[in-house]
């Protein structure tokens, strides 16, 4: 073959390869970027999207255009199912704009993005102690609300001041290109096709994490594995000294500043806000206590209570689920064969069955089947915080005592 003829073949094949691979990636859609049909046994499960929620969720929410928004980290992503029957019909379409590992600042920026989509009437925000507790600069005079830059923030419709983000379209074009014309996307397309079992990690089209992978681990290895791994990580995290929840001496922080801005926007635009603290298994609470951060934990709740008091009770709800309760205090599995707790996957992540109980209490809807009539959450708007914290300490002693074999 002459070099000229070879060149023709070569160029033709280059074009064919490039476009057929791009079409393949679009059809399989491993990152949920294109919303092509999810075909059972082919591309229904999206195992490679689970570590890329920061890539696709900012775009996916635009397609869903929800009236109710769940915001938070991996806990509400796994715990609050947008398809649950416990939501009120009036809440319309619900989307879980939740991101594993994203701190409070990022969650609030994500909430801004969600609100900028235009139809949101209700925002449900899961607050997490661990997002408030970290090493801070010592007692700064005034908290400022920064406009941080990152790939994730480029994907949001608005910036930290709620102004239009000029980088949004560039980011979207880049992400679309990357999801079609990269080796990662190609590899992940193949991986998606191969990994279509019932235990494959996945995200639903409403942003929920059904935790199939956790189910598989429990089935094969036992719940103790998840507990052991997570408790090790938690112990290591909370062993860091010098973490605090406030930036200023007056008890203000970046997180509260962000919440303030979010709530003020919601009030101005007649959007309802529900804040709640995520439930932890009691073993998590015990680690906080043993690490010497219990006082900070109580101050965190006090600060939230004080914070919401400045707003009308009907407009802003604050619920506490980070509690010692019938639901959170149960035996920790320590070896194979020991049952997992009814309401938790592991110390840090609650199941959506517990999420349903939380929703039924928040919205006052009778949606729980079976005998689960014991109340769980405490609405802090209506509660004296000191009495609540005192009761919690009593509750702890009582419930843990019940767990011991002698009782």
């Amino acid at each position, binding site marked *: *073959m*002459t*070099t*000229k*003829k*070879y*060149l023709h*073949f*070569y*160029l033709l*094949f*280059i074009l*064919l*390869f*490039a476009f057929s*691979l791009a079409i393949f990636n679009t059809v399989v859609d491993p*990152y949920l970027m294109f919303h092509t049909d999810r075909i059972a046994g082919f591309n229904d499960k999206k195992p490679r999207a689970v*570590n*890329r*929620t*920061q*890539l696709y969720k900012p775009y996916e929410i635009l397609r869903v255009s929800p009236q109710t928004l769940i915001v938070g*980290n*991996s*806990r509400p992503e796994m715990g609050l199912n947008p398809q649950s029957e416990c939501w009120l019909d009036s809440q319309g379409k619900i989307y879980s704009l939740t*991101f*594993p*590992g994203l701190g409070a600042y990022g969650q609030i920026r994500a909430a801004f993005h969600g609100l900028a989509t235009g139809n949101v009437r209700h925002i449900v925000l899961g607050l997490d102690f*661990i997002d408030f507790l970290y090493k801070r600069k010592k007692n700064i005079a005034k908290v400022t609300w920064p406009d941080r830059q990152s*790939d994730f923030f480029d994907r949001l419709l608005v910036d930290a001041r709620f102004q239009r983000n000029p980088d949004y379209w560039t980011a979207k074009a880049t992400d679309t290109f*990357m*999801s079609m*014309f*990269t*080796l*990662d*996307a*190609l590899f*992940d397309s193949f991986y998606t096709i191969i990994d279509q079992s019932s235990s494959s990690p996945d995200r639903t089209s409403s942003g929920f994490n059904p935790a199939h992978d956790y189910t598989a*681990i429990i089935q*094969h*290895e036992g719940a103790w*594995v998840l507990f*052991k*791994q*997570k408790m*090790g*990580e*938690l112990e290591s*995290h909370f062993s860091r000294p010098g973490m605090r929840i406030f930036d200023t001496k007056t008890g203000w922080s970046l997180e509260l500043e962000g919440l303030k801005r979010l709530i003020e926007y919601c009030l101005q635009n007649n959007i309802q806000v529900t804040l709640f603290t995520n439930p932890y298994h009691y073993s998590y609470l015990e680690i906080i206590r043993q690490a010497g951060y219990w006082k900070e934990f109580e101050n965190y709740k006090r600060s939230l209570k004080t914070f919401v008091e400045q707003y009308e009770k009907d407009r802003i709800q604050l619920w506490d689920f980070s509690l010692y309760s019938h639901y959170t205090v149960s035996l920790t599995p320590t070896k*194979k064969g020991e049952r997992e707790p009814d309401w938790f996957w592991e110390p*840090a*992540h609650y199941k959506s069955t517990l999420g349903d109980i939380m929703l039924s209490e928040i919205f006052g809807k009778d949606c729980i089947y079976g005998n689960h009539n014991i109340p769980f959450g405490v609405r802090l708007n209506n509660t004296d915080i000191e009495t609540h914290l005192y009761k919690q300490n009593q509750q702890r002693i009582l419930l843990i005592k019940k767990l011991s074999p002698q009782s």
Partner: protein
Amino acid sequence: MLFNSYIFIFAFLPITYAIYFILAKYLGGEKAIIFLVLSSLFFYSWWNPTYLILMLCSIGFNYFIGETIVKFLKQKNFRFAKLLFVIGIIFNLGLLGYFKYANFFIENFNTVFDTHIKLDKIILPLAISFFTFQQIAYLVDTYKGITEEFKFFHYALFVTFFPQLIAGPIVHHKEMLPQFLKMENMKPRLEHILVGLTIFSLGLFKKVVFADSSAQYSTPVFDLANTGETLSFFVAWGGALSYTFQLYFDFSGYSDMAIGIARMFGIHLPVNFFSPYKALNIIEFWRRWHITLSRFLRDYIYISLGGNRKGNTRRYTNLLTTMLLGGLWHGAGWTFVLWGGLHGLYLVINHIWHYFKNYCGMQFLDNYSLWKLFSWLITFICVINAWVFFRADNISSALRILEGMYGLNGISLPNAIYTRLDNLKSIFDTFGITSYIGGGSQFIFTYLWVGILLFISLMMPNTQQIMSRYSEINSFGHALFNQGVASNILTFRFNSIWAFIMSGILILSIFGLARVSEFLYFQF
């Protein structure tokens, strides 16, 4: 600028290529060469323009010294020629010493003598080791009367030619300049473009697919060692093996890309890698690994020290010294010195063994497949052990990985695998194999990937063999290259099947230039 970037592939390379040949056609070769030098300087300064001045000073000074040495040699004024030669060598070593080793030297001086001499962190200028070595070789060759240069831009092109500027291959003036000046190389040829593009694609594929993917398995292990974690047997081996392949495919891929780009210009660069992991002994390994550096070390250090001319003891001392300096050349750190030292030691042992084998008449061993397998295995393990020092941030991290590799921290499997191998429980108990939580899929992917790359490294022909119909692989007289030419089916030729294969490789490589970022995070 990196070869494996969109800006290089889609902008710099085609634009430079087109302008170079247009200038050569309409304004003549000299103008084209000047343009190529300027383009190469632009390519270099893309990273950090500050160090462009340093490189220009180095080129200017070496050119002046070289030119003057030639003049003195022609006047038979050998004393001044020698004086200038010594000045030139001191200048180059001084430059390298200051920019690459000053911090290292001061740090160690302070430790040993408990002093507190302060020196700001000196940023290592890109490619200084390469362009300095290349110019030292030029001065030596000039002083020996092997080469000479009287045109500044010719000399500048020899140093800065962008395909080989950043990471070699290290070239000699005498093997490069005549090629640039060939009239036929001043016209673009479709065969050169296609062959060059094919070699470039193979290199790019090695870099972005094989090397970069290996990094995700090696980096976490070395990072863990840095944090002081103890590593179990399989984890440590997984990390070391992944790095072994990462480095090979990264560096040989880069060399292939350089060779391919140069070939598009009609320039043949010397082969730099020739399936090093197929080596059956460490001497052979160094004939296959970073060949142009080995050539430099042999010609300009080992032989200058006396080589093997002064008895075995001196020969081994020279070998060890050469490899220690070779180690230090790779980086200013004790880990690199140890890496070089280990290879020096391996070479000495290998030479002694050869001597002993010949003395005892045991050459027949080399005919047995089992012996070859044993030789390969021991060579490969030695190489991997040394790479641990090469990659680790410090000696204690390296030792931590080696502890794991030699089972000092026990043998364990991810729990997800361990529990699925219930039938082997009794064997696990006998050998004290335990389990650890997490890392199951990482474990499987690591060893799967290592297996694939091992197969490719050992069973597949290398780039030079694949391209043997169109590459002058013997152009620099390397005897080893006569050994293996790929089977007919794996040898590139201009036909539709190869067009299909190479277009696929090119597209996959280009797809690999960018990554879709992941957000791996353990939510507490």
